[in-house]
């Protein structure tokens, strides 16, 4: 991944960010960035949406068409450090980036692009054409995320680092599992050939710093890091493996449901329930191997008829939180093995996660990381939000030498990390190396840092920054 020009982002100064579009993506991003002390302006054509944002958050809003130069000017694009074009329309986002680049010289331009037609022609985004530095597609990120959960049905979360070389996986320990009641060191004794590292354990929602002697209890949420190829073997030690996923049922054929069905239909038996008849017909035309059902996702008769009891993974992905919760609960009741519900309101997420619903997905937290990576200081390759935004996992690229950097050439236990931050692993070239205390960090390593409290993130980033004077 290319990194944006940091020279415009002066250390100590707040970053000026202009967000176009106050939809779901725009407002979550705004919320996340405001908390990190940035100057935010949000533009949208719907003043009602802006009013809601303005009420809750400390930011500036402006009503108008985001692709008009006059509106952009009024929003202060002239001295903006970063443009985030995340309106509903790909075209508006692309035009806004183009305008920002050719009229105002905005240093960093990020656009949300959903249409595969555009994404298939990357040359459209270069500096001769639409000048989009980074394109993001939240629906695709979310779809990839759910795909991982379906591939590893035992996991609560699977996050990729360093082009999928290393992964961070969250699992819940259950009574009767092979690890419960035993110290963590047993992991190494059982699999001497496979290197893995437990980065954190959350017990009853509070974090523990894991040590070799920590004894795992029923209900613990364990985060471990391993090379992606080894995930399955490690999972096997953590929990009894379920039988692999074969049958998937999806409720809601919107953007996410459709993408998910398309990604899964080759390898799994997929059934998709959609309420709108017209939408059903469109889906049926696009999907080849998915059984499209016209009906209500909360209709228990339809679920029985379609054998919800035999379903391995059930995903409720409509854009209505209450419906998703209800249909996920019904599916669980009906015997579905694992149920996932998409929930936008964070209050609901905390309410249902860990109850009957196995995984409550908050789209905002899943997708925000990809944006945060661009906004953060230091060379951050990836950011993943964990535990509904409370914790974070970062992939940082180390630069400099022993003099200019506080980490290069030092053993991991010599590094002055704040308490609660741990180095889980590092990726050096193609190798994934676990973060044992005597490991020495080299320049250009990708370091995966697990931070149990988001407040420490700033400190960690600072630690990894190259001292001024190096350049």
């Amino acid at each position, binding site marked *: 991944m290319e990194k944006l020009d940091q020279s415009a982002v002066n250390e100590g100064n707040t970053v000026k960010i202009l967000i176009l579009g106050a939809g779901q993506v725009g407002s979550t991003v705004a919320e996340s960035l405001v908390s990190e002390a940035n100057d935010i302006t949000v533009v949208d054509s719907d003043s009602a949406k802006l009013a809601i944002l303005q009420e809750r958050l400390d930011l500036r809003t402006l009503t108008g068409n985001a692709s008009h130069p006059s509106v952009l000017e009024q929003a202060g694009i002239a001295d903006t450090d970063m443009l985030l074009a995340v309106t509903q329309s790909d075209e508006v986002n692309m035009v806004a980036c183009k305008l920002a680049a050719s009229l105002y010289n905005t240093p960093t331009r990020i656009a949300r692009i959903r249409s595969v037609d555009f994404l298939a022609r990357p040359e459209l985004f270069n500096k001769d054409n639409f000048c989009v530095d980074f394109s993001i597609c939240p629906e695709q990120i979310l779809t990839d995320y759910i795909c991982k959960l379906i591939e590893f049905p035992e996991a609560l979360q699977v996050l990729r680092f360093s082009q999928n070389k290393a992964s961070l996986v969250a699992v819940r320990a259950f009574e009767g599992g092979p690890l419960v009641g035993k110290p963590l060191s047993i992991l190494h004794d059982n699999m001497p050939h496979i290197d893995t590292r437990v980065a954190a354990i959350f017990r009853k929602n509070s974090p523990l710093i894991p040590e070799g002697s920590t004894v795992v209890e029923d209900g613990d949420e364990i985060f471990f890091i391993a090379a992606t190829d080894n995930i399955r073997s490690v999972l096997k030690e953590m929990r009894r493996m379920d039988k692999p996923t074969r049958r998937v049922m999806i409720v809601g054929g919107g953007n996410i449901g459709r993408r998910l069905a398309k990604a899964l239909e080759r390898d799994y038996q997929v059934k998709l329930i959609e309420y709108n008849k017209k939408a059903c017909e469109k889906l*049926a035309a696009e999907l080849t191997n998915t059984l499209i059902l016209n009906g209500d996702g909360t209709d228990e008769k339809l679920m029985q008829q379609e054998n919800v009891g035999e379903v391995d993974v059930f995903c409720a992905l409509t854009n209505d939180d209450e419906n998703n919760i209800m249909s996920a609960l019904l599916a669980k009741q009906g015997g579905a093995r694992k149920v996932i519900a998409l929930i936008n309101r964070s209050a609901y997420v905390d309410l249902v996660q860990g109850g009957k619903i196995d995984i409550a997905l908050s789209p905002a937290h899943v997708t925000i990381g990809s944006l945060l990576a661009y906004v953060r200081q230091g060379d951050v390759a990836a950011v993943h939000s964990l535990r509904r935004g409370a914790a974070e996992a970062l992939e940082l690229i180390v630069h400099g030498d022993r003099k200019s950097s506080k980490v290069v050439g030092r053993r991991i236990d010599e590094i002055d990390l704040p308490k609660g931050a741990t180095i889980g692993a590092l990726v050096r070239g193609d190798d994934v190396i676990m973060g044992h205390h005597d490991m020495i960090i080299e320049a250009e390593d990708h370091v995966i840092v697990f931070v149990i409290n988001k407040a420490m993130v700033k400190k960690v980033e600072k630690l990894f920054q190259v001292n001024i004077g190096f350049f």
Partner: protein
Amino acid sequence: MGRTLTVIHALGLMLVVFSIAYVMPVITALIYNDTAVVLDFLLAMVWTASFGGMMWLVTRRYKGELSIRHGYLLVVAMWTAMPAVATLPLLLVIPDLSFTDAYFETMSGLTTTGATVLTGLDVLPPAINIWRHELNWLGGMGIIVLAVAILPLLGIGGRQLFRAETPGPMKDSALTPRITETARNLWLVYVAITLACIASLKLAGMDWLDSICHAFAAMGLGGFSTHDASVGFFNSPAIEAVLMVFMLLAAMNFATHFMVLRARSLRPYRMDAEGLASVGLILISCLVIAGFLWWQGTYSSFWTGLRHASFNLVSLATDCGFASVDFNQWPIFAPLWMLFLSCITASSGSTGGGIKMIRTLVLIKQAGREFVKLLHPAAVNPMKISGHVIPNSVVFSVLGFIFLYFMSVVTLTFALLISGLDFISSFSAIIACINNAGPGLGMVGPAGNYGVLTDFQTWVCTAAMLIGRLEIFTVLILFTPQFWRR
């Protein structure tokens, strides 16, 4: 009435154009120094041209645009009037030929059926043979344009399927926006493949006359031959192989060929669900029939069985109608299976006849949909072919077409049974004629000939050829009272 005269006006012009076709047999007769035949053909040419010219002149006040309704009338009129005038040289050259038999022969030629009432083909004047084969070839040309450009406009039996904006191979790129342009392009492809076929046959060992005649018959999927023993006369595996390849090409959609030539890539073939299904079905059938013949002991070696089974099967399944052996002598399963294939394997937009593979695919998928509907009542399961959704209205018109097709087969078979023909001969004759395949079984088998039929039976078969060629609806619609009501 005015509109009907407009149809006659257009028809007159067609006949004048058609009279140009006599040039080819005239040249042939000149080459062979057959002065009497030259005069006969010139006479026929003058007659046709002046007859057409007169129709055109008399009705010139009614010149005008034709409505879709009169499109049906014109198509049927063309396919009845052209065989009628084409009988002229046959009647002039062969003195004891009745008009019934001559009309059967030319209808069989222009509908690319290939059934014949004539015997002693080997000793007929070369010009007559060229004329018969040219009719095959012209019939094929006509049917391609009819199938690709005209029937879709009329929307017959789910033919909308093949319109440029809907699925299948044509969807990729509408051929060309205009019918005349499309027609010209398809003809060019047709002519080009025909020339390739003539050259290949010459290389495989035929003389020029035979190569031209057989290439015409193969491309039109007509199946006329210059020999009583048909292709069996040559007894050459090379010739059989060449003919098989070109028959298979002719049984595919010419629009696909056109796109392959234009795009210079074989991708359109891979995208052509219809063609792939046909070729697959034919391939499997060849192996099964060859194995069956070997098991039954018809041929002592599997390979001889495979050679004869594949040539005759391809010939019948593509609705061409060449024969290399008397497959009537094979155990009944084999020839009946071949006749069954003749009903379904040809592609839309090819020169073959019958139900067409695309309609078969639609029906198979419809059956699958019914099963899904029973198991999952809430399922939304549109019909898709090559990834494109087919609207239900098309499915219904395909169902309607199939129903009329079977009713026609049954009714016409009964008509032959009433007249005293045996069941196998009646049934196979109607199947062979309505699919425009050619030889049937029993009395009209590859060793026999339609000459044994009575006049009544000959007319029934002639009607079957016409109905089958024009996709049933086009002909039958003229017999509905609504058609003539204003």
